[in-house]
């Protein structure tokens, strides 16, 4: 069981009377890149929010690396090694790119108000190491030249890449990416599969991504899970999922499915 980086077991979420997630199961092996697709309103982002602790699941359990994280606070789940990015840019606007990156190291550093206030030798050493790690991590995603710029000066796509780096810097085990390719320039999009693979291979991170750029999902994901109306309707390798009649129906509707399979 321990080779499962993340396991979602029978998770249900209701908002008012609406079942946003209906006994969803998801098993992601360590080192896997998993795609999460589905039409709008399928519950993909809600699933990420439940896993990262922003919403509590009504029913079911979530295991990170074999231990239940159900009911834990988001910051606690993050400290256990789960990172995530959001659909929109969540860079801290008052900070430079470098300061944003160093904020990502929060859980890996431990100077307190006294050691920081009195500039203890250890706190200063930690600060230097944090800066070094931040620059290295920016370099990893090819954004080193933007270190001293403000987040708001970057393009939307650049901000998203910095956010990914900010998540990676604390060496999480699992990272959830919510539509990471939105806003990327064509050039960057072309390199993006490579970046995702490098994150998996060089950092040993398990990735789960929601993505609408289907080409990217097909290229890079080992397995794809399809959500529709809060339920998992397909789960398997990309090609198998692509031809699943239920998936086609969920995206295109019944009528078009008939035409699609006829042609």
């Amino acid at each position, binding site marked *: 069981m321990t080779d499962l980086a993340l396991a979602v077991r029978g998770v249900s979420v209701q908002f008012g009377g609406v079942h946003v997630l209906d006994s969803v199961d998801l098993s992601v092996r360590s080192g896997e890149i998993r795609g999460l697709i589905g039409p709008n309103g399928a519950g993909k*982002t809600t699933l990420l*929010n439940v896993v*990262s*602790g*922003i*919403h509590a699941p009504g029913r079911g359990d979530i295991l990170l690396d074999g231990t239940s994280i159900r009911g834990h*606070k*988001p*910051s606690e789940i*993050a*400290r256990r090694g789960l*990172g*995530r990015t*959001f*659909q*929109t840019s*969540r860079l*801290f*606007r*008052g*900070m*430079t790119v470098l*300061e944003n990156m*160093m*904020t*990502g*190291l*929060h*859980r890996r*550093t431990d*100077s*307190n*108000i006294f050691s*920081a*206030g*009195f*500039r203890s030798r250890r*706190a200063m050493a*930690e*600060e230097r190491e*944090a800066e070094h790690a931040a620059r290295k991590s920016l370099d990893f995603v090819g954004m080193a030249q933007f270190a001293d710029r*403000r987040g*708001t*000066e970057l393009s939307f796509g650049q901000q998203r890449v910095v956010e990914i780096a*900010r*998540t990676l810097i*604390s060496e999480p085990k699992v990272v959830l990416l919510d539509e990471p390719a939105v806003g990327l320039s064509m050039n960057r999009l072309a390199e993006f599969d490579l970046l995702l693979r490098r994150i998996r291979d060089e950092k040993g991170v398990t990735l789960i991504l929601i993505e609408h750029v289907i080409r990217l999902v097909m290229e890079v994901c080992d397995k794809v899970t399809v959500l529709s109306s809060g339920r998992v309707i397909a789960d398997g390798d990309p090609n198998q999922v692509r031809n699943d009649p239920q998936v086609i129906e969920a995206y295109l509707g019944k009528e078009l499915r008939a035409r699609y399979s006829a042609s």
Partner: protein
Amino acid sequence: MPMFCRRNVLSGLFILALGVPAFSNAYQLFVANLILIYVLLAIGLNVLVGYAGQLAFANAAMFGIGAYATALLQVHLSWPFYFAFPAGTLIAMAVGLLISLPALRLSGLYLALSTLAFAQFTQWVFSHWDNLTFGAGGFKSPPISFAPLPVSKPVGLYYLSLIVATCVTLFAQNVVASRIGRAFVSIRDGDVAAQSLGIDLLGHKALAFGISGFTAGLAGGLYSQLLNFVSPEGFDLFQMVIQKATIVVGGLGSITGSVLGAGAIIIILELLREAKGAQEIVFGGVLILFVTFFRRGIVGSLQQHFRGWDEPLHSARPIGSALPSQVRLGEKESLS
């Protein structure tokens, strides 16, 4: 490093402050001491509001609690000032931590309202618990003696204030330049993202409230000695407005801004004393001028026009970029 940079200017101000008692009259020394007290208040409030983004209105009350606690320990229990002052400061800090408890669940306007309610409650206690606080008329607190040091009380208190204010400024500057300052700003700029990076919201909010309570307590203890008189009206809503004005005019999210803002506001208020009835009106006009044309405060303007004024977490903003998010009234992040 250019001559007119942040470090040089602050050092210059410090040297100037050292010499104040030598060339000023009693009134000027009083104003200088008042400025030092407001530097303490502004730094604590700026950590809470400008850095951590918590729109709280309890600072005047904590200032009052520091003053009352320091003075009452001297009056009722005959404690010497040197015990009463730290004890009063710790009491104010404890109260700051206590009001952070409900505040941890509230944000924006709700936090503003609940802390305002707390401030009103404190006013009521100051005015009506006659046996403890001597009621609305206030009371006299015994002046400290600096013997055997060869200094008069005003000069001694001034240097004590200068030492405290300088230490707090340096300490605060170091804290905000560390992972703690970054955690504060991350909570201000996006609490959902902050949590996803493993930052504990409640712990850091409580810490920010504790820091502001601590500095307000220090300021209160010194203030009770500056006037040797404590009464409720010194800690009312107008006091809160003055303190907010110091950080808005100086620059939100900047320790240097807190220092410059405290100096500017106190000097403006004292100059306006001449204008008697017009004091409030002109003061209001100055505030409107600042929030309209100098939204980033004195420090923001200095950063725009001179080199060497950048601070950690508060660097020059490129022209044309968005206004600071700083405090967003009641705006909750969407979770998508």
